[in-house]
């Protein structure tokens, strides 16, 4: 079977989920057109009182955060030399790259004048956290693209450049880990500037560290989840011997993070607002139970970690709790001070869901056509170049 035949035969047999992703993608394009003809007010529920919505809270904060598996696993394999995790590095890097692409597309819609996104390159303001965020997005997306490039290059037989990149892998991984550390933490630093606006359940001078450590925990959760999803989609087996020790790492990261959160709340004297059981208190309890208490408690037991169903459940709760935390920081915690309530509009949700669906479709396409998981492209028949 030749490459072209593989691609062509697939193009005409879209599955159910491909069609769903296609419809969502079209809806996304429609919203984009309205956004750039009628303005942000016509498609979003944003206002002068509430200028950042889910495109920042979900697309940006969660898109970057859930891509954290990439730097965590490249560090584990290439810096800590735990080579046994190598088989799951490629899907993680792909997730990272897609996550960052997702963030950039969302930013192109959210920015008032996205065609000026490059202004951060020439007009510098090193006092701005957003300036740091902009540079981290640009540089780390490049690093992820280079880290993933060998997969594409090898597929089409360009082995020499692929070998060249492989030789540079150590400095590349170090650069990636440094940029990720800066970027994950800087998303927390963004909210240091609003001490009078962010609710004391979430505001803390330690926000940068909290964001960094929780991203490592949830990033590992994502690695488990995507292994599970591709297992279901492509009938692969779950690499339990690799995922079980990863879940242990997740427990440690989330445990440290949970303690930091409790300490911060105690320093803000905000435990009272949990007991009051108001809007913020309830949202906090939901987030903290789902994202910290349950995953840490359940995944502490080896018996549960080693059971695929429990493992996936634990990882799913950690990721869900993480998403809730980012939405609470960016939306729930800011609502009281803004004097208004924010609910995303249907079109805002369409963009976010459409982008997630597109990302998953691209992931599935990549898994079918490139050597993402060990054993080459899945469902593409015998690989023409087994060495690739």
């Amino acid at each position, binding site marked *: 079977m030749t490459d072209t035949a593989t691609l062509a035969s697939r193009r005409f047999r879209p599955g159910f989920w491909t069609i769903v992703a296609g419809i969502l993608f079209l809806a996304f394009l429609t919203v984009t057109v309205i*956004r*750039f*003809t*009628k*303005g*942000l*007010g*016509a498609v979003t529920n*944003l*206002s*002068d*009182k509430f*200028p*950042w919505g889910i495109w920042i809270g979900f697309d940006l904060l969660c898109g970057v955060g859930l891509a954290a598996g990439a730097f965590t696993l490249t*560090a584990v394999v*290439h*810096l*800590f*030399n735990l080579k046994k995790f190598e088989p799951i590095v490629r899907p993680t890097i792909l997730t990272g790259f897609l996550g960052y692409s997702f963030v950039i597309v969302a930013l192109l819609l959210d*920015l*008032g*004048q*996205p065609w*000026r*996104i490059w*202004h*951060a390159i020439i*007009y*510098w*303001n*090193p*006092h*701005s*956290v*957003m*300036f*740091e*965020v*902009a540079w981290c997005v640009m540089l780390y997306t490049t690093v992820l693209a280079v880290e993933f490039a060998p997969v594409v290059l090898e597929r089409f037989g360009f082995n020499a450049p692929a070998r060249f990149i492989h030789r540079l892998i*150590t400095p590349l991984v*170090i650069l990636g*880990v*440094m940029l990720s*550390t*800066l970027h994950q*933490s800087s998303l927390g*630093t*963004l909210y*240091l*500037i*609003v*001490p*009078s*606006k962010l609710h004391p359940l979430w505001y803390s*001078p330690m926000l*940068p560290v909290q964001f960094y450590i929780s991203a490592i925990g949830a990033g590992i959760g994502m690695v488990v989840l995507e292994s599970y999803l591709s297992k279901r989609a492509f009938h692969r087996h779950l690499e339990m011997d690799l995922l079980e020790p990863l879940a242990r790492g997740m427990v440690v990261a989330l445990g440290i993070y949970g303690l930091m959160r409790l300490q911060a709340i105690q320093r803000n004297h905000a435990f009272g607002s949990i007991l009051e059981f108001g809007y913020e208190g309830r949202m906090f309890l939901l987030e903290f139970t789902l994202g910290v208490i349950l995953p840490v408690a359940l995944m502490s037991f080896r018996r549960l970690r080693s059971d695929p169903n429990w493992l996936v459940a634990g990882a799913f709760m950690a990721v869900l709790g993480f998403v809730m935390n980012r939405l609470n920081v960016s939306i729930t915690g800011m609502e009281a001070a803004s004097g208004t309530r924010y609910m995303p509009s249907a079109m805002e949700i369409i963009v976010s869901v459409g982008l997630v669906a597109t990302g998953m479709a691209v992931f599935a396409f990549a898994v079918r056509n490139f050597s993402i998981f060990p054993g080459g492209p899945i469902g593409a028949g015998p690989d023409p170049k087994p060495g690739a």
Partner: protein
Amino acid sequence: MGMGLLFDATRCVGCGACSSACKEQNKLPGPVEEVLTAYTWTTVQPREGLNVRRMCMHCEVPTCASVCPVAALVKTPDGPVVYDAQRCMGCRYCMMACPFEIPKYQWDRPVPIVGKCILCSSRIKEGKPTACAEACAYEATVFGKKEDLIWEARTRLRQKPGEYVNHIYGLTEAGGTSVMAISSVPFDKLGLKTKLPGEPPAMRTWQVLSNIPDFVAVWGVLLYGVHWITARREDVAHAEAKDNGRENQS
């Protein structure tokens, strides 16, 4: 210290001449609105039997200028915090960050920019007062050097202690501002933010950002060190395995 404004709520009659003059000076479309928008940079709101002006406070260390990734917002030595619409990419971090909730956005336009008072910076350069101060017939808004305005405000508070709350709003709020206000009613009842830190919020992020160069150096060396140790361990393990093999053969 630059130029500034002093607003005296006890003198304002709420005629709105300042808002109209502002619209005209800055060529802002539409009528004067009740709240600040991208097209209404100053407005007068009735509160507690008084009238209070809402406008940009022109902070000494502006939060908006510190957070702007492309330095589109800048504090000039004259006093105004000015905005360069040609640089702005529309991230709206200034709106998020401003402790006074001043910058507003053109939500209705496909190519939007931020709108906020720029303290008539071009008029100040020409040596003229702001349009709003010039339009005020009751001297509720007066323009001048900031130190003179502080002196004037202190004089009024001292001469008529019963008629004023003993506080100059803007002297310490968010690190101090070029626009200040005095009133006979507590400022929070006028709708002004009163629970603001005396230290500019920009300091909180700068404490983190200023450490980045050190962090990059230390973290980079540490990560390479980890790699060096683990790689070396592997080399040694290989070499030992090889040596053992030779010994067994000999």
